[in-house]
């Protein structure tokens, strides 16, 4: 059992204060959904936890199993078991999906003092590619290079499946996907939670994902604060009545 704890986290980008004392506790096997309007601070919360340079923490803590994440560089946070699925994944022309996954997994194994097993890697990659409904030739393409929106999202989930972090924060993994894509990704996530006990934080502003994924907790963000926390019913409430009820101003 692992625990990701965000406690009273405040952060700013440049001189603009974005996050105000955000708290959130995620345990292994839990699915949390963070909802909120554009500009409510959801993405900044995700990138701040992962350690993006442009975000400066001005107060609070972020720990994984008690160890201080904020003291670590982004790659060390990844080694500690954190994963961030990007809303807009970056392309890496000239480096294939297969090469990239191999390098990332090697780095992870080295950091954790584990042996990297090439044959197991190949088999796992094949399985993950199939599970996401992709052709095996996908692994020989440049990472996110010329990928469609849907392929990019699948690529994020493919990495998640391969890297097996303790916690995954997925920023709008559902945007730009058709129904089939959405189902496919939801199935993969449910499977990860069931088998790997991954703790998942889904950032979204569309409730559609809730048809296929059942969250344990739903949090509403507004103006850089968590303004409400509840169960699945909170998301339904949003779907029917919108965010206005939570707008603090």
């Amino acid at each position, binding site marked *: 059992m692992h625990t990701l704890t965000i406690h009273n986290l405040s952060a700013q980008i440049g001189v603009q204060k974005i996050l105000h004392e955000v708290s959130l506790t995620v345990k292994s096997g839990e699915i949390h959904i963070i909802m909120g309007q554009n500009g409510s601070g959801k993405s900044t919360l995700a990138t701040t936890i992962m350690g993006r340079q442009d975000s400066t923490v001005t107060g609070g803590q972020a720990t994984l199993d008690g160890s201080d994440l904020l003291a670590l560089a982004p*790659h060390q946070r990844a080694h500690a078991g954190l994963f*961030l699925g*990007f809303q807009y994944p*970056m392309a890496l*022309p*000239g*480096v294939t999906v297969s090469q*990239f996954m191999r390098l990332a997994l090697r780095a992870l194994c080295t950091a954790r003092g584990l042996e990297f097993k090439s044959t197991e890697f190949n088999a796992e990659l094949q399985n993950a590619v199939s599970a996401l409904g992709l052709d095996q030739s996908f692994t020989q393409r440049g990472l996110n290079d010329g990928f469609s929106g849907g392929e990019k999202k699948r690529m994020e989930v493919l*990495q998640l499946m391969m890297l097996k972090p303790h916690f995954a924060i997925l920023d709008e993994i559902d945007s730009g996907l058709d129904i089939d894509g959405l189902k496919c990704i939801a199935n993969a996530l449910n499977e990860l939670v069931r088998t790997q006990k991954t703790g998942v934080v889904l950032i979204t502003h569309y409730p559609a994902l809730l048809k296929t994924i059942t969250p344990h907790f739903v949090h509403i963000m507004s103006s850089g604060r968590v303004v409400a926390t509840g169960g699945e019913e909170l998301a339904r409430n949003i779907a029917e009545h919108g965010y206005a009820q939570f707008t603090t101003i």
Partner: protein
Amino acid sequence: MPNSPQSKPTTFSPSAGYAAGFAMPERAHAKSPKGLTREVIESLSAYKQEPAWMLTARLNAFEIFKQKPLPAWGGDLSKIDFNDLYYYVRPDERVQQNWDDVPADIKETFDRLGVPEAEKQFLSGSGAQYDSEAVYHNIQKHLTDKGIIFLDTDSALKKYPELFKEYFVTVVPPADNKFSALNSAVWSGGSFLYIPKGVRVDLPLQAYFRINTERMGQFERTLIIADEGSYAHYTEGCTAPAYTTNSLHSAVVEIVVRRGARVRYTTIQNWSKNVYNLVTKRAHVYADGLMEWVDGNLGSALTMKYPSAVLLESGARGTVLSLAMAGDGQHQDSGGKIIHVAPHTSSMIISKSISYGGGRASYRGLVKVTPKAEHARCFVSCDALILDTASRADTYPTMDIRARDCDISHEASVSKIGEEQLFYLQSRGLDEANARSLIVNGFLEPIVKELPMEYAVELNRLIQLEMQGAVG
């Protein structure tokens, strides 16, 4: 140690000067005086026992050299002091460089690249010849059975004077530029390769396999003649830094690609960062022939090099793949030149440069289509990647199109490694140095995949080393 000089041929060792240990003053009497004079050239030619016509050619070239101004474009050449250079050192009087005198950073790079001990010493100029008699003999037999001539250029002049004279200075005349004139006056060493009609050599030929010759010389002269329908791949250089105390490397490479023949010429230069690398490389390509230049420039203080192909007959093709890395104190001014002389000729120039740590990379290219070269096709693409704000990239493309019905296209891009791209890779567990080198590797991939495997592997490791340095 594979360098015991057993019963080597009695010919002198060419490309003298390169590996010589000029740093040892007590042996100063063993070499010709600094600076270039008629006397230096005469004694050089006499020592080599050259035919009279070669001495005359050298002296004529020397006159041209004296008259020609330095190029007013490209890099800064003002610091070259032609009077402060050695132009020839007799091979039997060469002094071994002391391994202890090789700069620490070069030794360290050797170690980190895992270069074998014997090769290290050779590359640093401190060891004896690095070669393997067994490998050499096998390859030589394999080649001579097919009628291939593969010799150092000095030996070729002796053994095949007629063939030599027929082609020498026909592709790159002395008057082409100041440095081709200089080379024509003082050349020593280099490779001579003749492939007979219809013969294909699948093994990449390296100067490495040639006994008694350094892999790279200071004023080397290389002449390759690919007769009709033949194929050869010639490679030179290596990714480990080649250390020399001499600061000017000025080579000339002339290639003749006959009807239907194909020549690929791959260079990776990693001269130490005190060297001016000013090289003229050109090929004449006849009907349906193909000349492919793969040119990687990693080392030197300043490189000015634009491998070129003159497409003389219908169906001739020429390609240049150029890769440049410019770090601290370096200026890589490189690219390619294609001259379309005949109709239905085609060409491609692809250039990728990386500048980092205050380095400067310039792409300089010329595509010229003469009025007769109708239906010429040409594609040029040059991409620059700049790794930090202290570094610089420029593009100087020249297109001179004078024929009708041509298909000419040019693409250029300049990019930087974005914070978001780095963060993405870091979030997957790669540290910053690895993330940067991965981006660089990906950027160079279209060219690296064309390199022989061992070059590609070494190059990737080298990039990794440089990136670690760049991040600090």
